[in-house]
């Protein structure tokens, strides 16, 4: 069918011709030399930005690895034993995600939410037969490797998903967890990945209520990069009171999890860059972090880069170390808060929090700005005693003492961490993180400088 035949009938009116007649010609002829020069400038900028972003990403994550190296093992929940603090690094070079096979068709509702990255998703009604509860024993019929065992989980399930390729599961690493309890009744299996991108990653797996977190090793290999795949960082997502299996490999994620027990999961993925950067680029412009709930719905997503660093670094880093900050006796803390919020930092000052009051409630407000571009320590939220509000160091947004947005360009209220009061003792739980509510859409912007801004304690840039 020709393009002309595809057009709807114009009813005698040549609307296509009318459009062409209505479109004005350029006032000036194009200067190709100027365009080519601009293109070269853009290319140089992109290269420089990627290099800078690499530093921004690697440096804080290196700090996480250092802190992990000091810890002999990651403590699990009571009775859960321990798994090694570091997962084995993979030596495999980056390979394409899809081994020549086409991704499956997805329900349009799923595809609409994720554009390219979601390759397949399915929900299982029951534990696949043949999969034992003992994670050290492969299921019947498998060749025995952990990778095959995970592959078996997907195969036996008969879920409408495709295998992304044998390499995806070949390097699965299993933490040395104790024998897990039986699996729960319902699972969801989700695969997320960008089919045309290349990357390599360490594996991860976690399961059973003995594991409170799901650990992900990430080598950080970027598209086209050929450096040896060494584990650069580790992240974790909380799996409260439920079993979870996960494989993360070759820029794709297979996740099998108890849909009732796991309220959300974190997925790092990549999208095709719509402004024309070409194939999806892993880790940098175009990549993003997606928070999924157990039904596959997106709860929140952030673009990788300064956004993701701001959004997930406090969260992930605190999860990785399971940091809790003891604030002492409740009465003494409340007395101190009468004079103003109290700053406190953890994880070698990578995460800073303002402890404040929301009415009578003690709250822990993130000292990282809700503005994506304001990454600590270059941008932060400080206390402005002369105004009695929190203020952003760079953009000047103001927040009330309870973290509610007051004015300025910040898109949300301040993010919050968990506060636990037990036996009169107050503890900040950095493993619990919630995004601030969106500010009113019609609110007027306008920040300003705070003359006596008190910083929260991030190290100097």
């Amino acid at each position, binding site marked *: 069918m020709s*393009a002309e035949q*595809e*057009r*709807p009938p*114009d*009813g005698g*009116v040549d*609307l*296509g011709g*009318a*459009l*062409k*007649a*209505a*479109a*004005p*010609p*350029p*006032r*000036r*002829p*194009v200067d*190709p*030399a*100027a*365009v*080519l020069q*601009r*293109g*070269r*400038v*853009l*290319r140089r900028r*992109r290269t420089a930005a990627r290099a800078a972003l690499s530093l921004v990403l690697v440096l804080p994550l290196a700090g996480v690895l250092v802190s992990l190296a000091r810890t002999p093992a990651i403590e699990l929940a009571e009775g859960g034993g321990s798994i090694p603090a570091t997962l084995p690094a993979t030596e495999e070079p980056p390979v394409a995600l899809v081994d020549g096979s086409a991704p499956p068709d997805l329900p349009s509702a799923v595809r609409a939410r994720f*554009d390219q990255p979601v390759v397949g998703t399915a929900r299982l009604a029951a534990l696949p037969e043949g999969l034992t509860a003992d994670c050290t024993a492969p299921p019947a019929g498998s060749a025995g490797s952990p990778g095959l065992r995970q592959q078996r989980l997907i195969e036996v399930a008969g879920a409408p998903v495709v295998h992304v390729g044998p390499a995806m599961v070949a390097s699965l690493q299993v933490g040395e967890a104790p024998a897990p309890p039986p699996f729960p009744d319902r699972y969801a299996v989700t695969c997320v990945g960008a089919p045309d991108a290349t990357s390599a990653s360490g594996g991860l797996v976690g399961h059973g209520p003995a594991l409170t977190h799901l650990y992900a090793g990430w080598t950080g290999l970027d598209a086209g990069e050929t450096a040896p795949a060494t584990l650069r960082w580790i992240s974790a997502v909380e799996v409260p009171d439920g079993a979870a299996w996960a494989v993360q490999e070759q820029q794709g994620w297979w996740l099998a999890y108890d849909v009732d027990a796991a309220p959300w999961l974190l997925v790092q993925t990549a999208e095709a860059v*719509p*402004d*024309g*950067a*070409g*194939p999806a680029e892993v880790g940098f412009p175009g990549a993003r972090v997606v928070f999924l709930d157990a039904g596959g719905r997106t709860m929140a997503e952030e673009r990788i880069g300064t956004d993701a660093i701001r959004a997930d670094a406090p969260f992930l880093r605190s999860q990785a170390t399971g940091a809790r900050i003891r604030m002492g006796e409740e009465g003494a803390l409340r007395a101190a808060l009468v004079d103003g919020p109290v700053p406190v930092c953890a994880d070698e000052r990578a995460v800073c929090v303002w402890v404040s009051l929301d009415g009578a409630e003690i709250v822990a407000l993130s000292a990282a700005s809700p503005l994506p571009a304001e990454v600590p320590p270059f941008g932060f939220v400080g206390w402005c005693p002369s105004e009695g509000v929190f203020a952003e160091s760079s953009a000047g947004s103001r927040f009330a003492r309870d973290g509610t947005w007051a004015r300025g360009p910040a898109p949300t209220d301040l993010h919050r961490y968990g506060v636990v009061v037990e036996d009169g003792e107050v503890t900040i739980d950095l493993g619990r993180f919630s995004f601030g509510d969106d500010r009113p859409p019609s609110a007027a912007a306008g920040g300003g400088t705070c003359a006596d801004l008190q910083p929260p304690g991030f190290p100097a840039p």
Partner: protein
Amino acid sequence: VVEEDPRTAFVRLEHPRLVGALALYCGDLDLAEELAQEALARAVRDWNHLTTLRAPGAWTHRVAINLANSWYRRRAAEQRARARHGPSEGGVAPEADHADVLAVRAAVAALPRRQRAAVVLRYFADLPVADVAVAMGCAEGTVKSLTSKGMHALRGALDDAPAPEVTDVG
């Protein structure tokens, strides 16, 4: 005979089409020229990728539409600025055009954004449905639906109303 650099040839070929499409889409010729130049610069930036594509022109139109959409997101602030500083001089040279041309532009400008993009890409830029779908990041069926609705709305607007007394379609 010295053969012209393929990037230069591409820029020369696509520039007028991009400017026309963007002028219809945005209703501002100055802006259209600016966005067209930026879209072409990005094409040059990603030339290696572009040469692997079946329809590099469609790709460039997609970049242009995305740039225009970014502009839309800033539009509210710009409109406030325009209100403070007086009307823009960047219109589509209305004094040089006939009333029916102005009517078409106004009718296009009145379309919902996605319908406008589909109609402009399909009927002004003459992109096949498949390329429009790529450019808009949606299914071909969606493109057909959008263009059908858009053309129906255009037809209705041009049938019902005389040439409007507009001086600036932006």
